[in-house]
């Protein structure tokens, strides 16, 4: 796995005053898309910052294409295209100026690629950053991330605040790009339906730990949501229960073994394939979210 991994995070720990990211491990094989999901405050952005070495890790290892992200920081970063949640561009300068200045730092920067993307995204290159809508800002950040032939894309909530049409187009474009070029992607998002379209792997972060990191189809095929009243759910083996929630119309339980649950649950219970959103909501539970 090591040789063929775009990203490998092993045993990473980071301590803050009020929060600790503990023993985080997961990896992304080359050419695959990994979705990073979890409630607010779970640690997703911290993980991304650790990969980009914006914060120092207290323990563990992070390797990008086999290189240590601290020791070989410059080499690693020249292969990463990033889109952050709060993009951090200069408000009062034009897109053109920023593209020229920032692009120059990448050895593999390709003006032609950027121009093509800018045309496709209809970026108003002569306008100042501040005047752009959120969607356009994201498109600019994405164009910047894609124009230097990055092998690993790290996207932190890139589609938040964007309308569904643009989101879908964005994901389509991303998909197409990935198919052609064996790029790898780490995609952190709240909008789990986006991951349904594009993620090969799903890594769930909860309260500073990795709850699971699984191939998406395996997750959705073997796990299930069981809905019913308390009586019908009683027979479920606690060992396979990953989360539960009392809703308006009964209780929902998330189990990691759909077949066993189907056998054990009462006749009035309904066993369904979970959506990623179900998984997230039920794993986080009612007391779990840090809204």
């Amino acid at each position, binding site marked *: 796995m090591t040789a063929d991994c775009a990203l490998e995070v092993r045993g990473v720990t980071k301590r*803050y005053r009020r929060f600790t990211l503990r023993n985080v491990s997961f990896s992304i094989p080359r050419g695959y898309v990994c979705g990073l999901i979890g409630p607010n405050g779970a640690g997703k952005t911290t993980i991304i910052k650790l990969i*980009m070495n*914006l914060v*120092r890790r207290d323990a563990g290892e992070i390797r990008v294409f086999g290189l240590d992200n601290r020791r070989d920081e410059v080499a690693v*970063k*020249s292969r990463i295209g990033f889109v952050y949640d709060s*993009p951090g561009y200069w408000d009062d300068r034009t897109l053109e100026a920023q593209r020229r*200045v*920032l692009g120059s*730092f990448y050895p593999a920067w390709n003006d032609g690629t950027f121009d093509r993307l800018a045309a496709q995204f209809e970026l108003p290159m002569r306008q100042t950053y501040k005047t752009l809508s959120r969607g356009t800002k994201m498109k600019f950040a994405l164009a910047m991330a894609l124009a230097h032939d990055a092998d690993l894309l790290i996207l932190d909530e890139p589609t938040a605040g964007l309308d569904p049409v643009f989101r879908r187009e964005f994901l389509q474009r991303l998909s197409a790009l990935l198919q052609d070029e064996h790029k790898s992607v780490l995609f952190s998002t709240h909008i789990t339906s986006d991951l349904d379209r594009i993620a090969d792997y799903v890594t769930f972060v909860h309260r500073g730990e990795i709850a699971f990191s699984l191939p998406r189809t395996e997750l959705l095929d073997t796990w299930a949501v069981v809905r019913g009243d308390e009586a019908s759910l009683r027979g479920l083996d606690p060992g396979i229960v990953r989360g539960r929630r009392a809703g308006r119309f009964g209780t929902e339980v998330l189990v990691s073994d759909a077949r066993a649950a189907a056998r054990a649950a009462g006749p009035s219970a309904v066993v369904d394939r979970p959506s990623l959103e179900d998984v997230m909501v039920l794993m986080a539970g009612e007391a779990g979210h840090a809204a």
Partner: protein
Amino acid sequence: MLRKLFLKDARLNPHLFWGVIPFFAWVAYALREDGAPVGMLTVVSGVMGAATAATVAAREDRFHATALLASLPVPRETLVLSRYLLAAVAGAACFLGAAALAALLPWSSHALGSIFDPRTVVMALVIAGSSVAVMLPMALRFGLVGVVAFFAVLQVAGVVLFFIASMFGLRQPMRLVFGSVEAGLRALHASFADAGASALALAVLAGALWLSYRLSVWLTTRRDL
């Protein structure tokens, strides 16, 4: 890499350079006075230039661009070094600008020779350099807050001095404080007549800047963005 970083600062912060113009206007005005302390003027402009670097860094912080820059394939040390470079360039530019005004303006009675008098140059380097050495680590670690804090500390120090002086029953303490500061600076300036003293001062300055640089690197690599 340093060149690219410098170009970045130049291109993305042009109006800071425009903001220096009012300062030069003041310099031009001040030169009207006979016996205007040209040394002082040029020195202060050196400091002004240095403050520019700190403000550029602080501005990046405001736009959260610091995280973006730290994500580019540029070593942190180089990013820090570019700040010192900017301070040097900006300081030199301001010094030369003020000197040019002093030399060229018809109402100024100072000849080029007296401006580029070695003592004045050394003085400017020492004062501007010290400001940079102190201000930059704070700006790089604390961003805009650091720059503001730096000036706030100066203010507070001034007020404290004022109170201490008045506690000792000294009348017109401000004049005393300014007087002694001015006297001290003059003495320093005078001491640079001696080549040895100048050389020593510059060596100390170099050491201080180097320490400041290492401190800045240490602070920024440890800073959680």
